[in-house]
């Protein structure tokens, strides 16, 4: 009368090794391949809200549009104000409304491109949602990631948000027309940027006065 039940199965540890953001990474890779196949240079912009992405982009689009076919995607939580501002540069602009999502993902970029013929473009800019944390985890298939910081935010921004600075290729210090007024220490800002991303190119400029824009545009043209 041995009716003991099955012995309990022991807990098991199984190895998985799975990248959590695999879906985004794969989609971003697909986008990058598409951009390369169509010879479109893609740059994305990240910064905290109000650092000057839209103003900088409006100037950049206006300067470029005579020489090449350029367009922009702009992410925003709720409004289409930035898209309206960028449309003043008279280039194709599309809005990506993210709702409650605080960053762009590759899938949103893919959807926003729907119906656009990439062969008719030379250069595409993607303005991310204003946020220095979340966008760092999401590859969008861009060729160049620009991180912007304005002089009014202080010199230590890179030390407070090292991850996003480390994932960027170029740093732009914006609103330098206000540098003297806020006693911005440019040397210390540059040192902090180099500390979290050694070797990164840094530009200082003002979208308002246009100071410093030429140097940035020269770099951009060398990449197109």
């Amino acid at each position, binding site marked *: 009368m041995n009716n003991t039940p*099955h012995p309990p199965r022991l*807990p*098991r540890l199984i190895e998985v090794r799975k990248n*959590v953001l695999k879906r985004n990474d794969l989609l971003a890779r697909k986008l990058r391949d598409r951009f390369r196949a169509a010879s479109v240079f893609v740059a994305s912009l990240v910064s905290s809200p109000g650092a000057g992405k839209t103003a900088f982009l409006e100037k950049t689009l206006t300067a470029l549009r005579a020489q090449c076919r350029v367009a922009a995607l702009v992410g925003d939580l709720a409004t289409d104000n930035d898209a309206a501002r960028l449309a003043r540069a008279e280039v194709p602009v599309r809005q990506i409304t993210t709702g409650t*999502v605080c960053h762009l993902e590759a899938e949103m970029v893919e959807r926003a491109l729907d119906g656009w013929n990439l062969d008719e473009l030379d250069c595409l800019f993607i303005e991310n949602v204003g946020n220095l*944390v979340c966008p760092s985890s999401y590859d969008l298939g861009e060729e160049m990631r620009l991180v912007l910081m304005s002089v009014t935010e202080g010199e230590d921004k890179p030390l407070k948000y090292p991850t996003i600075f480390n994932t960027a290729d170029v740093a732009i210090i914006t609103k330098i027309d206000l540098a003297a007024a806020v006693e911005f220490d440019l040397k210390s800002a540059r040192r902090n940027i180099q500390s*979290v991303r050694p070797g990164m190119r840094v530009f200082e400029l003002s979208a308002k006065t246009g100071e410093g824009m030429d140097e940035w545009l020269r770099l951009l043209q060398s990449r197109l």
Partner: protein
Amino acid sequence: MHELSIALSIVEGAGEEAARRGGKVSVVHLRLGQLSGVVKDALLFSYDLACEGTLLEGSRLMIEEEPVVVFCPECAAERALASIQSFRCPVCGALTPDVVRGRELELVALELTYEQHAASATPATTD
């Protein structure tokens, strides 16, 4: 705050694996690089929310934090950074942008448990 959406991806990924292998997930092991852009505490907090109403409800998330390892060209060696605020070799002080490890956001392993009756429902079980 993107930790909730990350937590949802973890729950989804772990759930798929568990469904393929049978059993109930009790622990999820995650490797989190210091340059992953994800905050450990925020992720732990979001994890319980993300598990609610799923097969992973009641499971635990164990996070192993991975320091950033760079390649120092001066020393010709891999070095772990003391802080991600300074990409300097801790031995010779040289600046280096060359990240070897530290961006991981990886599901490493699952601990699965089996309930008594669930086990006896599988007739051919011998272990």
